[in-house]
Structures are given as structure tokens and as C-alpha cells.
């Protein structure tokens, strides 16, 4: 693991790398603690019921926060990941593409690898599209055998704040 170090870097070994991580963690905690501690010392403290109320986008909070969330929120989060991952891979790829493209025998590989990756992701997008999951109000699937699922009571549906 010594041969691929950048020029000028010192090999500190595995323990050294973990020491860096440890320092990061400690500084992180210290920073947060310091900021909160100083604020605590400086600010006046005058709590009242209005101040202590949970903030819910300006609405008066009601009911318990432990309700069943609509599964569509999770679906949307999953679709987001499709595009998120795409970006995560596209950026570093784009950065090195210019360097790698002129290399004989590598340029085409670099290009087509990304094309294949994007087409697999597009298949995922096509999948959710065909399945109707891109619509917020999803069409109910016809079940020939009837449905044996109880309908979700209306009061358990949670809408976006």
C-alpha cells in the first residue's frame, strides 16, 4: 500500500489513518459542544408554552407523531436514490473522462461503461414509470381474485406538511 501514494504524501500506516479519523471525530464533538455551550452561557432563558411547542411548518401540532406514514413517501425516497446514485457516479466520471479519453484502448471503455450504467438506471426509471409509481395518486391494480387487504382508514393517511 506504499506504491500508490501521491507525491509528497507520507505513509502513516493504517493506524495513522485511523488516528486521523479519531481526530476528526474528537474535533467534531468539541466544535458542537463548544458552540452549544457558548450559546447556552450567553443567551437569555425565558421558556413559555408557545416557544416549547413542536414546530410543524407553522401549523398547530396535533396528535401523536407516531402515525403510519404513507408508503409513497418511501417510494419517492427510493426513486430519488436512482438519480442520486447516477449523479454520484457521473461527477467523478466526468472529472477524469477528459484525461482518460485519449488513452488508446481505454477511451471507448470509459465511454461505454457509463452508457451501460445509465441504461441500467433508465430501465429502473422505466420500471417505476410503467408500474405507475411516478403518479402521486396511484391507480389501484385490478386484482382478479378480489382484495383481501383491509383498506387503510382515512385518518391514518398522512399528507405532506
Amino acid at each position, binding site marked *: 500500500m506504499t506504491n500508490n501514494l501521491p507525491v509528497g504524501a507520507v505513509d502513516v*500506516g*493504517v493506524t495513522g489513518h485511523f488516528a486521523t479519523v479519531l481526530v476528526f471525530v474528537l474535533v467534531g464533538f468539541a466544535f458542537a459542544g463548544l458552540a452549544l455551550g457558548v450559546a447556552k452561557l450567553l443567551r437569555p432563558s425565558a421558556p413559555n408554552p408557545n416557544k416549547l411547542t413542536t414546530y410543524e411548518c407553522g401549523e398547530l401540532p396535533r396528535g401523536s407523531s407516531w402515525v403510519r406514514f404513507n408508503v409513497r413517501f418511501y417510494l419517492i425516497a427510493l426513486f430519488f436514490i436512482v438519480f442520486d446514485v447516477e449523479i454520484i457516479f457521473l461527477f467523478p466520471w466526468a472529472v477524469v473522462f477528459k484525461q482518460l479519453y485519449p*488513452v488508446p484502448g481505454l477511451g471507448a471503455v470509459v465511454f461505454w461503461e457509463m452508457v451501460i450504467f445509465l441504461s*441500467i438506471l433508465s*430501465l429502473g426509471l*422505466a420500471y417505476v414509470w410503467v408500474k405507475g409509481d411516478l403518479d402521486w395518486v396511484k391507480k389501484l391494480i385490478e*386484482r382478479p*381474485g378480489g382484495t*383481501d387487504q383491509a383498506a387503510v382508514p382515512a385518518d391514518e393517511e398522512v399528507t405532506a406538511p
Partner: protein
Amino acid sequence: MELLNINIPDWADLAWWLPEAILCGTFLVALLADLVVRGRRPWLPFAVSVAGLVTAGAYAVAALDPGTRTILGDLVVVDGLAAYFRLLFIFVGLVTVLFAWTAEEIMGRTRENKGEFFALTVLMTAAMCVMAEAKDLLMLYLSMEAVGIVSYVMAGYMRTSLRSTEASLKYVIFGAVSSAIMLYGLSLLYGMTGSMQFDGIRAGLMGGQVDDFGLLVAVILVIAGMSYKIAAVPFHYWAPDVYEGAPTPVSALFSVGPKAAGFALMIRFFYTTLAAGPDAAGSAGLVQQINWPLLIAVMSAVTMTYGNLVALRQLNVKRMLAYSSIAHVGYLLMGFVLLTETGLQAILFYLLVYALMNLGAFLFVVAINNHLRSEHLDDYVGLGFRAPWAGVMMVVFLASLTGVPPFAGFVGKWYLFIAVMDKQWFWLAIIAALNSVVSLYYYFRVVKAMFLTRPAEGANLSPLKLHWLQYVLLAVLAIPTLGLGLFFGQFTGLADRAILMMTTGF
């Protein structure tokens, strides 16, 4: 401008990965085909999947003697072990796809997403192949997760069935916990040795600057994660519920595929990172603080005893087979105790035999469930006369699972016994032998129900007509289950070669 230091991939070596590439491609094409027909013509993805599996299988047969090929930038290796398991997984995948086609639980009129089932099976097959090939911690974890995630979906396949969704949820939760535990172990290993590669870890351990206690903790955590995959006690608790709740073809796949993949992974991981090497006497890994053989032996004994004793009380045939599969993991671990070549070869051969007989037994349950909608032992009464051919083949599978002499199960167990008795571990062999006797009771209780118990007055005794494909598949599984018990030289030879190629290759 300075060029980055990147190795141009060697295309010639990548050709050894053709079966996996074909499987991945098949998955995508099958999924696309299912989208194009809007899930209305499940035969299309079915045909694509079968074609893909057969083609991949043909290439896997052609590449049965690969030497040692490291590909994908040192992440995976195709060697004898990988080639052997690859063939096994593709066979298991193909059988699963074919008999899912005949299963009401998958193809019934009210079922949804039929086409996707076949695509998912193909994807799982590909991921299991990679599990047998991984030689890098990253690939190891990635392939295990790939198998896991597909499994969770397949376990919950019957979306409207409470049992099935419960199985899926349990599987997800246990899976997440155990994979987190294993990941922690892997990260400790990496932290101590500074390498993700199996041989790099080995070199790091050989270097001798590794804290023994840390290593012990890391390896135990990794064993925990892998034991979950193969469902060994004490990490077995998910298995019965998942096998019972999942659709039967899926349970059949789970009880063979991921289990064999877990063993493949364990063999490669322990042999190439922890074992003392091919020249040493075989046993005693690098971690000297702990008595490895004893630990695995105790685990093996407890697993087989627990599986067999609990199976005694099961009246649901599917659940009984789930506990029996736990017991078989116990037998298989016997070959792992001493990490000798004999033991590993015995594991490979037994996994092949186990795949044949266990898939066969599950297929019979599928065929009966199609007609009776039940897996309860009481409903099996008289089945021997209602479906005589299938009934006789079920007897072959059950006898082989017990390990009765003329069948393949006996030969497989014989090799496992030799592996431990070779090194004077008689107590383990005795426990295993006693366990086989116990298992006779619950396997033959099914036989008794089918052939000997007198059906109640007025019971429906009309003959059951099975799907023709089910007869073909049962025969395809039953004939080698009988044949391998008599002519096993060829296949044990295959297992021997696979292990030799791995042990001498690194």
C-alpha cells in the same frame, strides 16, 4: 497532463466471467420484456430466463477448468471452486424457475408480477455466483447483500398473504442486523491488516503485528454473519418462519442456493485468509488463541441436534423441511471443522447431493400444494396411492435426506464422516450418526402418512394429476439422487479437482 495510473482491463480474462455477464443481461432483458407486455404474458420473461440460464450453464460447463483467473481488478477470482459452485447455482436457478412455472403460489390466477419472479431468480443466481468468486472484502459484502435483497423481495412475493409478508419482514430485520455485525468484523479485519484482499489480509496476519484479541473478535463477528446466511445455530431463528411463509419454490431456492453460496464464501474466506496453508497439517488457523476445530465442531453438533430434535415435532411438512435443512447445515459443518482438503471436498460433494434431494422434496410439496392447498401432514394421508409416481420419488428424496445406503445422501454423509474421523474426532461422528437415526423418524413419518396410514372413511382418494413438467423435474432430481449413490466417482472427482485447484492456486 499526467495520466492516471489505471490498468487497462484485460478482455481475454474477462471472458471467464461470461456466465455471470449472461445472467445479469438475462435479468435486464427479462425485466424489460415483462414491462413491454405489462406483465400480461408471463411466458415471455419465463422463456427469456430459461434461455439465459441454459446459455450461462453451457458456458459454465465449458469453463469448468479455468485455472486461476483474477478479474475485475482483483475483486473476483474464477477458479475451480468458483466453476464448481457456478454450475451448481445455475442448475438450482434453472430448476427453481421451471418449477415455479408449475406452482400455483407463483402462477395462480390471482397472483401478481409473475414475470418478475423469473427475472429475480436469475438475478439471485448471478449474485450467488459472485459470492463464490469474491476475493475482496468489498465484493464479499456486496454479493452477500445482493443475494440478501433479492431474497427479501422473493420471500414477500405473495403480497396479499400475511404469512408471506411476515416472512419477508423478519428476513429483512434479521438480515440487516447480521450483515451489520459481519460488516463490523470485516472493518476490524481491514483496520488491522490494511488490506481488503483476502491474500493481502493473510499477508498482514502473517506479518505478526496483529493483536490476537482483536483478530479473535473480528473473526467471530464474521462467522456470525456467515452463519446467518447458512442458517447455523445460533443464527438460525429466521429460517423456519421464512421457509414456511415464503412461497414453496422460493423456500426450495433459499434452502439450497444461498446456503451453498454461504459455504462457498466461508470456504474461500477461511481457507485463503485464516488457514495455515496447504502445506501444514490442515487444521489450526492463524488465530491461535482459540481452538477453532472445537468451536466449529460444537457449532456443528449443536446445529444438527437442534435441527433434528425440533423437526421431530413439526406437523407442517414445509416447516419440517426447514428444520431438516438446519440439521443438514450441521452435517455440512463437519467438513469445515478441520479445514482439510478431504473435508472441503466432502462439503462440495454433499452440497451437490443436498441440492438434488432437497429441491426434490420441496418440489413434491409444491406439486401437492397445487392440489390440496395444504402442507399439513394429515393431508398427506393416502397420497402414495393418489399420486404413486411422485410419491415413490418423494420416498427416494426422503430416504436420501436420511442417509440410507443405496442413495446419494449416504455417500455424501460418508465423506463427511471420513473427514472428521480421519483426524480422530470420533465424538462428532458419533453425534452425527445418532442424529441420522433421529432424522429417520420424521422423514419416514411422511412416508408412513403417504403409504401406510389408512385414510379416514369418506376421504377423497381420487388420483392427483400433476403437471407434466413436475414429473419431468422430479425424475431429473430423483434419478441422480439414486444414481449418485451408486456411481459417485465422477462427481466426487469433480469436487476434488475444484478444491485442489483452489488450494494450489494461491
